[in-house]
């Protein structure tokens, strides 16, 4: 296992100084995601205008991987429609489960492609998908 592919600069940057680690005033949706096996707990806040995610932020505690994954998710879904966001979640989870492997299909994930190698670290998969599952639950 190559740690460099997991703790990449992009992931470290998002885990330590995320511009998305903040609170939104009067969010439309606020949803807690919890990983009971490790104690990670994040709150994902969204501001929706009609069907579009105008703003998103997170707070809480988590490891570098779960925080970075949350931050990158937020960058990705801002200004997207609910449907687009849900499609991104399915693609991301498909990538982690190695069910979606087509590179063209994966392109929409942009920076979140950095988590492709997390499948090599099964113990950390839950950290990477926490925010994505939380978003899905929140939007549904």
């Amino acid at each position, binding site marked *: 296992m190559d740690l460099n592919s997991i703790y990449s600069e992009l992931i470290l940057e998002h*885990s330590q100084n995320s511009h998305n680690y903040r609170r939104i005033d009067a969010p439309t949706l606020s949803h807690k995601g919890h990983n009971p096996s*490790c104690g990670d707990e994040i709150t994902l806040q969204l501001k929706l205008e009609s069907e579009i995610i105008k703003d998103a932020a997170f707070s809480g505690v988590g490891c570098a991987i779960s925080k970075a994954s949350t931050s990158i998710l937020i960058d990705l879904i801002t200004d997207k429609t609910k449907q687009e966001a849900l499609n991104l979640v399915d693609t991301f989870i498909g990538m982690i489960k190695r069910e979606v492997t087509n590179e063209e299909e994966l392109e929409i994930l942009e920076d979140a492609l950095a988590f492709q190698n997390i499948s090599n670290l099964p113990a950390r998969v839950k950290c990477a998908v926490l925010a994505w599952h939380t978003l899905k639950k929140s939007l549904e």
Partner: protein
Amino acid sequence: MQNFMQDIRKDFPALSQQINEKSLIYFDNAATTHKPKQVIDALTTYYEKFNANPHRGAHYLSIKSTEIYEDARETVRKFIHAKSSKEIIFTKNATESLNILAFSYAMNLVEEGDEIVVSILEHHSNLLPWQQVAKLKGATLKFLYLNKDGGIKDTEIESKITKKTKLVSITHMSNALGNINPIEKITTYAHQYGAKVILDGAQSVPHMTIDVGKLGIDFMVFSGHKMLAPMGIGVLYGKEALLKEMKPFLFGGNMIEYVYEDYASFAELPFKLEAGTQNVEGALGLMTAINYINEIGMEKIQAIEADLTSYALEKLTNLDEVVLYGSKNSKDRGAVISFNIKDVHPHDTASILDSYGVAVRAGHHCAQPLMRYLEIPATTRASFSFYNTKEEIDFFVESLKKVRRWLGYGS
């Protein structure tokens, strides 16, 4: 000593593996220990030569299986210094033993308005059954809290255990912090009020000499897999008179005396509490593990583990980036060290250590209320067994020094 260690390590095939192209350093012994080849071989021999249903047939194999199973019970009795082998009930693990006590004993003992006392150190397995009993019976669950060192003060014991207390269920040694609790003191105090004491020995029985009589406890539970035996075998110890009062937990084969169409009478102890075909292979594994421990000697095991713990504590104390939890005094604790690295989540620490072949545990250690009480989300835990070495600790500490760098911190 060096030859002794070399011989010991040869007994544990799993320890000589390469993980991530690095030699395995196994520091997750509080979760489960590896098994010596004596235990592994005993299981193979059992299935090659014996394997029959105990307590049933008149044929040779069944008699042999019965002998093995009952020899194992007697071996456990001696190991924990119980008075009678009727006091030893085989279960699946400590969790099952505690659930048997909750539902077959406590549910008939505790009444509305009574109190059950546990400590904030408890593993979920010694908390959730009591939450259930308290809820179903309208009783109150009370907690013994900790001083700064992680210890339980006398005043805490004296103020929480009262005439309302029916039951105290407490861990001997914390799986999360390693602290050893003052059991004799708690037992003496609880017995003044007629309260019964259950000891969770999951972490202590594998690492220290246990004399249930000296401790004065009424019940004790532990798991085989944390002491070199296979998973799936555990023990419930209880004073004979108390076990006798207990209603069966599971009903079925082997636990009966006479069975009629509409009623049945139950077998004597210990069989009354062992329904169905039992885990003979597990009991044999546990007996073999105890014999292995006895051959080395529990005093020697304790000395080796105490030496490893104080060596590691000293090294970790010297690292600025490490925050240690639990007692600073290695005399008050078992071979468990909980810590965090500044700015680093324990999961990242554990993954990075894993890449160096070092196996530690990260998380809340099945003690969420304790983590909340300490105001930390999780810790990293290194736990030793007598088969670990100082060289392994050196490598672990060197690997720890690299963790912050992997996460982009200067040092």
